[in-house]
């Protein structure tokens, strides 16, 4: 597992930040970043059902990086009111986001389906869990912007 955890910091707003480096096609620890985020939320005392939503969104984002990208980074910022997750990858990008958001549409190879993924539910699941969901993707390099996909997920503690 290739992960880096930024030091936990607690400022006056009790903000905690994490960052995980995710290696594409490395399933040996796939999901562990999301599980560690989940444990942090449990430690802080977020409601259990909310933690599950956040963990699902993070897990689907993490798995998308592993399945589709060469590598990526997943960052999370936790405050008492909000959890924000950024999942940014160096991958091929998504040619048709609208199609990718349809349940059941998947470009995953067969060996991924044998693991129980690749059902085309990842992005729809993330959107369903998030209060705010934003996705930006490029299938070719434009200026300083490399190809790849960036997802931002915001979930409120309410």
């Amino acid at each position, binding site marked *: 597992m290739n992960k880096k955890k930024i030091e936990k910091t607690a400022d006056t707003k009790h903000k905690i930040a994490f960052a995980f480096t995710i290696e594409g096609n490395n399933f040996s620890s796939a*999901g562990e970043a999301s599980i560690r985020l989940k444990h942090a939320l449990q430690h802080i005392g977020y409601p259990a059902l909310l933690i599950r*939503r956040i963990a699902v969104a993070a897990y689907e984002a993490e798995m998308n990086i592993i399945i589709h990208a060469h590598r990526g980074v997943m960052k999370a910022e936790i405050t008492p009111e909000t959890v924000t997750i950024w999942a940014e990858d160096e991958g091929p990008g998504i040619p048709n986001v609208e199609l990718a958001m349809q349940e059941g549409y998947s470009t995953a190879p067969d060996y991924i389906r044998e693991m*129980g993924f690749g059902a085309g539910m990842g992005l729809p699941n993330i959107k369903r869990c998030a209060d705010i969901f934003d996705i930006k993707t490029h299938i070719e390099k434009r200026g300083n912007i490399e190809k790849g996909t960036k997802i931002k997920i915001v979930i409120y503690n309410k």
Partner: protein
Amino acid sequence: MCLAEARNDGMCLSEIIILLSAEVICGQDKLNIPVEAVYAGDLMSDLLAQCHTNTHNKTLLLTGLNNPQVIRTAEIMDVTAIVFVRGKQLHDEVLQLAKEKGVPLLVTKLSLYDSCGILYSAGLRKQPDRLR
């Protein structure tokens, strides 16, 4: 105790072991944990999409997917225990990860269909609610 009666409060893992003639692979110390809802299937994203239940619900996963990702998905979803169907010979990675995570694993020789039918007939009828 009549297992055939409808049970709104679920049943213990030990009862499920009897019903499915299951073998306990790991988690022998957790056989008294309650089970209230069941998810049966091999699509992990399907489980992720469905399992947003009341925090007091204890969900059992029935699956034929012999893969470590099942264990991680189960941990994300707070799955109480996993029953592998069709007499799966579990991979070492699966067993190792389950022990590490403290997830009880059972194996039954029954099919997924039969296992579901037996548990449903015994009164375990609650499904995980949809999130939205």
